[in-house]
C-alpha cells in the first residue's frame, strides 16, 4: 500500500498497463520529455520509449483522430488533451467518429480509446483552463464519461477505461490532482464504469455529486450532522455516462430528499438529468424539490473570483437546509 496523490495514482495506472499490454500507447502534447504539464505521464517516455509515449504537434483533432486510426490497427490509445477547454478543438473527431464507428460498421471497427483531460476549476488558471464540460460529452451516445474523485478510484477507473472496448472520456479533476493522498493497493484494481458509490451513508437527504466536489460535499455532510442534525447520504457518481440511476433512486427512495452538486453550468447540465431520473422512478418518494447547487449559467469568472462560482460546502449546506425545511 502506498500513499499517493491522484497524479501519481494515474501515472501508476498508466505504467502498470503499459507494462502489461504492449497495445497501450500514450499520445498528446508534452506527454514525453516533459512528462505532461501535470506530470501524469512521468517516466513513460523513459520506460517505454518514443513509440509508446508519443509527443504530438499542437493539434487536438489530430490527437483524437490519430487515436481513432491507431485503434483500428490494434492499439489501445490513451490520448491526453492538455486542458478540457481545448477538447473542443477535437470535438468533431469525437462526435463524428470516435463515438460512431462501432455503430457505423456494426463492430468491424471500434475505438477502444481513452481521451484523458484535466477537468474543472479551482487551480487559479487562466481562461479555458477551468471548464467542466461533462454534460457536453455525456449527451453524446457512444461515449462513456468517467470522473474520478480521488487517487484510488482514479487509478482503478483509468485501468477500466483503457481496457474498456469503447471510447471513454476520462475527466481528471485538477483540483484533486495533488490536493490529498490516499492509500492505493499494490495490486492493480479496476472499477465498473457506470456505477457510482455511496461516499457517506445517511438517512435524511441524498447529496449527489462527483469529481472534485465530492470532498466539499462530504464536508457539508459533516457540518449538517454536527450543527444541524441532518444525516446526509453522499453519492459519488464516478461516471456521468452511463449514469447509475439505480443507485440514485435507491438512495432517494430511502431519504425522500435530494440535492445535486456539480461545478458545471446548471442549464442542461448533468444535474438536470439526475433530477429527471429521480422524477421518473421516485416521484412519490419526493418530499421536497430537488435542488441544484451548481456552477452558474455564465463563463466561470477569471481565477481571482472563481471560488465564488464553484459550489462550496457552504452552498451545499444552505441548499440542503432549505430542502429539509421544505
Amino acid at each position, binding site marked *: 500500500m502506498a500513499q499517493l496523490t491522484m497524479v501519481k495514482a494515474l501515472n501508476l495506472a498508466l505504467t502498470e498497463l503499459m507494462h502489461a499490454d504492449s497495445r497501450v500507447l500514450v499520445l498528446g502534447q508534452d506527454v514525453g520529455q516533459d512528462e505532461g504539464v501535470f506530470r501524469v505521464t512521468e517516466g513513460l517516455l523513459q520506460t517505454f520509449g518514443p513509440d509508446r509515449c508519443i509527443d504530438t504537434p499542437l493539434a487536438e*483533432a489530430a490527437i483524437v*483522430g490519430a487515436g481513432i486510426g*491507431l485503434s*483500428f*490497427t490494434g492499439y489501445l490509445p490513451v490520448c491526453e488533451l492538455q486542458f478540457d477547454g481545448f477538447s473542443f478543438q477535437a470535438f468533431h473527431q469525437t462526435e463524428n*467518429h470516435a463515438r460512431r464507428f462501432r455503430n*457505423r460498421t456494426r463492430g468491424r471497427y471500434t475505438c477502444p480509446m481513452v481521451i484523458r483531460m484535466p477537468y474543472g476549476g479551482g487551480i487559479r488558471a487562466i481562461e479555458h483552463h477551468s471548464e467542466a464540460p461533462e454534460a457536453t460529452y455525456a449527451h453524446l451516445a457512444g461515449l462513456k464519461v468517467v470522473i474520478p474523485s480521488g487517487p484510488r478510484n482514479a487509478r482503478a477507473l483509468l485501468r477500466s477505461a483503457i481496457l474498456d472496448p469503447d471510447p471513454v472520456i476520462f475527466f481528471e479533476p485538477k483540483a484533486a490532482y495533488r490536493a490529498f493522498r490516499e492509500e492505493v493497493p499494490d495490486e492493480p484494481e479496476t472499477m465498473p464504469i457506470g456505477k457510482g458509490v455511496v461516499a457517506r451513508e445517511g438517512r435524511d437527504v441524498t447529496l449527489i455529486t462527483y469529481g472534485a466536489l465530492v470532498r466539499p460535499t462530504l464536508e457539508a455532510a459533516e457540518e449538517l450532522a454536527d450543527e444541524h442534525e441532518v444525516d446526509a447520504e453522499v453519492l459519488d457518481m464516478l461516471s456521468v455516462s452511463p449514469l447509475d440511476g439505480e443507485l440514485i433512486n435507491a438512495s432517494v427512495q430511502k431519504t425522500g430528499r435530494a440535492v445535486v452538486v456539480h461545478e458545471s453550468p446548471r442549464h442542461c447540465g448533468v444535474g438536470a438529468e439526475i433530477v429527471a431520473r429521480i422524477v421518473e422512478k421516485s416521484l412519490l418518494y419526493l418530499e421536497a424539490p430537488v435542488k441544484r447547487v451548481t456552477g452558474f449559467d455564465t463563463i466561470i469568472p477569471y481565477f481571482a473570483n472563481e471560488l465564488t462560482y464553484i459550489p462550496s460546502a457552504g452552498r451545499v449546506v444552505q441548499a440542503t437546509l432549505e430542502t429539509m425545511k421544505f
Partner: protein
Amino acid sequence: MPRETISIPQKLESLSVLAPDGKLDTDLEPHIPDDDLRRLYRCMLTARRLDERCLMLQRQGRIGTFGPSKGQEATPLGVAYTLNPDDWHVPTFRETAGQLWRGWPIDTMMLFWGGHEAGNAVPGNVNDLPTAVPIASQCQYAMGISWGLKLKGNQQVCAVYCGDGGTSEGDFHEALNLAGVQNLPLIMVVQNNHWAISIPRSAQTRSQTIAQKAVAYGIDGVQVDGNDILAVIVALREAIEKARTGGGPTLIEAVTYRLSMHTTADDPKKYRTDEEVSEWEPRDPLPRFQRYLQRKKLLDEQLEQELDAEIKAELDEAVRKYEAYKFDPTDFFNHMYAELTPELREQMQELRAYLGQIQSAD
C-alpha cells in the same frame, strides 16, 4: 545576403502518361499485365454503369440521395489497383471504382445509398474503411492508421482520399502535418474535380495547385492527370514504394472533373456552364482507357458486348439483393457499446413495447 530566396528541397512535380488524344509516353508507361488491364477496364465500366443505375434507382425513389462519381473512376481505380489487399484504403465518398476493385459487393454499396448501416459492411479480406461523410475528417483517422502501420514497420501503407474542397478543412492540414513529422506511410490522394458543390476550385484556395500544399509539410507533392489511370498508377507506385521503405507521406493531386451533379439533390446548372462540362468530356477516363486497350488489341466489339451483358446481369442481381434486404428496426440499440447499458436496454424495451402495441393495433 540579408535578402535571400528560400528554396524548396522536396519533389514537386506534375505527371501524365496517356494524353486525352491518346498520345502515350512510352518511357513512363507502367507495366500492367494484359489480364489486369482487362479487369481494370471491366471494373471502370462497372463503376460507370453502377453510377447510371443508381441515378435511375434514385429517380424511382428506390434509394435516397446519391452522389455520382462519373468521370472520376480512373483515380480511385488506379489507387486501389496499386495497393495490396492488406494495405489500407480510406475513401471519402466518390471512390466507387476503387471500392469495387477492393471487392465491395454492389448491393452493399446500394444499401449505403438506401439508408442502411449495412452499406458500411467492409469485405472481410481487405483493410478498407467505409464512406466518410464529414469532409476531410477521414484524413485524421487515416493518419492514425498509417501511424499504426509505421509502428509495425511500414509493411503496409494507407491511402486516403480527399476532395479539393476538403483541403480547406483544418483536418486536412493537421493530418498531413503530423504525417510529415512522424514520417508516416500515408498517401494523400486529393481528387481535385474542380468543384465543391457550387464552389469552384479557384474559390477554394489561392494556391495554383493542390500539390504544392505539400510544401507546407515538407513532403513530396505530385500533380497527376487523374483521368489518366496509367499516370495515377505510376504516381501511386512511386509513392507506395517510398512509403514502404520508410520515406514517409506523399500528397498526390489527381486532376479530374465531376461530369455529373454533386448529388441527386444538386442542380449544377445553377453554378456551371454546359460549355465547361463539354470541355471536359473528351478527357473522360473511360473512353480514353478503352482506346488504350483497343490499341493493345485487348478489347473488341464482341468482348465489349459480353462485358455489357455481364455487368447488366450483375447490377440486376445486386438490385434484387438490395431490395430483398431485411432488418430488425430495434437492432440499432445493440451497436452503441460492446454491451447494452441499462439505459439502452430500458429504451429498447420501451420501443419494442410501443412497436408491438401498434402492430397489434392494426
